[in-house]
C-alpha cells in the first residue's frame, strides 16, 4: 500500500512551466485520474512521479519516502505508456519478463509470475508472439502484464487506451478497473477523455495550465464545478455558460457590446434545461442533433450558444424561437474572478 504525495512541485523547461506549484496526494489502493486538455501538465506530473522528469522545486514522496531525486527504478512504480513501449525484437514472454531478468529474479519465480500475469491479462496463448504479430488490444495487454508482473504497489498509466478503437476502449476500461480493484493497486491514470475519468476514477484531478483546477470525486466535479473551466471540461455536451449582468440581486442576460455585460456567468447543464411556454430565457434554435435516446438542440441566446438536451426525438427547426427555463438549484453561478458563488442569492425573475 502506497501513498503518493506531491508538495508544491514545479517542473519547468527554461521559462515554460509544465507543472506549476502542484500539490496532490493519492491514497493507497485508489484509482486516481489526472484529467485535462493537452498541454495542461498531466503527463508531466505523471512523469515526475515516475522519475522521468526532474522537479525544479517541491517534494515528491511515495509511501513516506522522499523520492524527489531518486532514479525511476528506485521508486517502486511501474508504468504503462501510451504507445505501449514494447520491445519490438522480444516476444511477449521476454517483454513481460524484461524487468525481472534485469533485476535478476530467480528463474522459477519468473515463470510463476509470468503465468500469473499472463493469466490475468488473457495472454496465455500469445506468449511466443512478437509485438508486431499482435493487435492493438493485445499489445495493450502485454504492456499491462509487464506493469503488473513487477508487483509494484503503484502503477502509472499514460493515456493507455487512447490508441484503441472506441468499442475496445470501453471493454478495457472495465477490465482495467476490475484489475486495479482485484490487485489493490494504486493507479495514477492520465487521460484527456473526461468520460474515461468519470467512468473509472475514485478521484479526479482536473488540471489546466500546469495547475490543479479542481480535485474530487467524479460526482463532485460534475455536480459542483468550482470554475468555468471545470464546468466546460466535464460533460458532453459541456455545461452552458451564459454571460449575465447582476443588478440588485436580479439577473439579466448580458447584451453584447455593453461595458458591464458578461461579467458573471450562469452555468446550466444541458439536461437541466426545459422548454417553457410563456416566460423564460429567449433563444433561437440554430441546429438540432438526434442521438437516439435524446436530442441535443443548439440555440443562440445573446452571445452564448446554449445546448439543450431534450428527451427522445424532439423536432426543432432552425430559426424557431424558444424559451428556456431551469430550476434555481440547477444553476451554477461564477463571478468576475471565475470563482463559484453559491450564496449570491441572485435569480432570474421567472424563477420561483
Amino acid at each position: 500500500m502506497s501513498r503518493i504525495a506531491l508538495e508544491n512541485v514545479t517542473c519547468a523547461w527554461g521559462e515554460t512551466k509544465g507543472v506549476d506549484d502542484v500539490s496532490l496526494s493519492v491514497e493507497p489502493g485508489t484509482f486516481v485520474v489526472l484529467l485535462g486538455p493537452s498541454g495542461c501538465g498531466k503527463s508531466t506530473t505523471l512523469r515526475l512521479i515516475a522519475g522521468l522528469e526532474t522537479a525544479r522545486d517541491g517534494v515528491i514522496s511515495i509511501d513516506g519516502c522522499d523520492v524527489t531525486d531518486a532514479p525511476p527504478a528506485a521508486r517502486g512504480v511501474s508504468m504503462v505508456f501510451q504507445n505501449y513501449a514494447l520491445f519490438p525484437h522480444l516476444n511477449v514472454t521476454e517483454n513481460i519478463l524484461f524487468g525481472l531478468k534485469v533485476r535478476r529474479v530467480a528463474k522459477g519465480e519468473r515463470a510463476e509470475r509470468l503465468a500469473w500475469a499472463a493469466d490475468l491479462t488473457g495472454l496465455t496463448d500469445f506468449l511466443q508472439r512478437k509485438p508486431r504479430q499482435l493487435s492493438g488490444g493485445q499489445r495493450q495487454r502485454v504492456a499491462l502484464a509487464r506493469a503488473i508482473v513487477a508487483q509494484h504497489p503503484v502503477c502509472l498509466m499514460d493515456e493507455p487506451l487512447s490508441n484503441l478503437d472506441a468499442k475496445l476502449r470501453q471493454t478495457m476500461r472495465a477490465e482495467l478497473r476490475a484489475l486495479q480493484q482485484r490487485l489493490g493497486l494504486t493507479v495514477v491514470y492520465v487521460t484527456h477523455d473526461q468520460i474515461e475519468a468519470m467512468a473509472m476514477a475514485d478521484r479526479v484531478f482536473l488540471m489546466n495550465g500546469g495547475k490543479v483546477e479542481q480535485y474530487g470525486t467524479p460526482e463532485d466535479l460534475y455536480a459542483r464545478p468550482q470554475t468555468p473551466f471545470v464546468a466546460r471540461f466535464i460533460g458532453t455536451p459541456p455545461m452552458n455558460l451564459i454571460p449575465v449582468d447582476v443588478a440588485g440581486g436580479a439577473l439579466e442576460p448580458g447584451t453584447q457590446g455593453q461595458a458591464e455585460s458578461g461579467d458573471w456567468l450562469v452555468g446550466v447543464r444541458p439536461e437541466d434545461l426545459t422548454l417553457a411556454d410563456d416566460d423564460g430565457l429567449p433563444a433561437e434554435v440554430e441546429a438540432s442533433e438526434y442521438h437516439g435516446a435524446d436530442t441535443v438542440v443548439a440555440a443562440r441566446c445573446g452571445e452564448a450558444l446554449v445546448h439543450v438536451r431534450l428527451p427522445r426525438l424532439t423536432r426543432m427547426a432552425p430559426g424557431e424561437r424558444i424559451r428556456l427555463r431551469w430550476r434555481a438549484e440547477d444553476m451554477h453561478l461564477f463571478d468576475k474572478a471565475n470563482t463559484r458563488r453559491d450564496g449570491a442569492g441572485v435569480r432570474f425573475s421567472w424563477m420561483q
Partner: protein
Amino acid sequence: MTPRMANVYGWLLLMPAAILLIAFTHWPTVATLISSVYSPGTPVRPARFIGLDNYRLLVDDPVFIQAALNNLWFAIGTVVPSIALAILMAIWVNENIPGRGLLRLAYFTPTILPMVAAANIWLFFYTPDIGLIDQVLALFGSSGRNWLGDPDLVLPSLIVMTIWKEAGFFMIFYLAALQSIPPELREAAMLEGASRWSFFWKVTFPLLMPTTLFVLVNALLNSFKLVDHLFILTKGGPNNASNLLLYYIYETAFSFFDTSYAATITMVLLVLLALLALAKFWLFEKRVHYQ
C-alpha cells in the same frame, strides 16, 4: 492493341535500360571471362585458348596470394572497428549535448573528402620524422618510424586511415536508426532498473541489427573496392606489403600489360563480391528484428 504489339511495345520500353546494362555490365563480365581463358594476343602471336591455365597460375602466384591475404586483413581490420566506432559516435551525437550539430558535421567531414585528398592528408601525417604523428611521438621521446615504408606497419597504417575515412559515413546510418527507436523504450527500461549498459546490449544493439547488417555488407564490399589511397600512399609497397586485389589487377593490366591474367584475377574478385552480395540478400530476406 494486339498481344503481339503489346509485346513489342514492352520490349521497346525496356530497351534503353537493357542496352546500357548489357553494354556496360553484362558484356564486360562475359568478355572478362572469355579473356581469362585465352592467352594475351599480340600482333605476332594471336590469342589462343589456354583453358584454366591462368587460374592454375593464380594459385601459385605469391603476389596474388599476398594481395588476397592483405585484402582479408584489410577487410577485417577496417570493417569491425569502423562499425564499432560508428555505433559509439552515433550514440554520442544522438544525446542531447551542446554543439551536437557541429560534432555530427565533424564526424561526417572525412566522408565528404575525396579519397585522394584524404590520402594526401594522411601522407603528411605518416611522413617519417617531419610528419604529424612522428612529431607528436617525438614529444614523448619516440620517433623515427617509417609508417608507410615498414612492411609490418604499412597495412595497419592504411587500416587506421580507412577507419577514419569510413566510420563517419556509417555513423549516419546508425544515427538514423537510433532516431527511429522510440524514446519510451529507454524510459520503460529505466523504470525496470536496466543500466545503460544492459539497455544497450538488450535493446539498442538488437534493434540496430538491420543497420549493422547493411553497414557490414557495404563495408566489406568497400574494403575490396577501395584502391585510390594506394596510388597516393604506397603503390602497393613496400614489397607488396600493402598490395590489395584491385590494385594488383590494375598493375597487372596497365603496368605489366598482361590483360588476360588481369581478367583472371578480376573474375576471382567478381565471384567474391557476388558471394557477398548474395549473402546480403539472404540476410535481408530474413529481416532481422524489423518492427
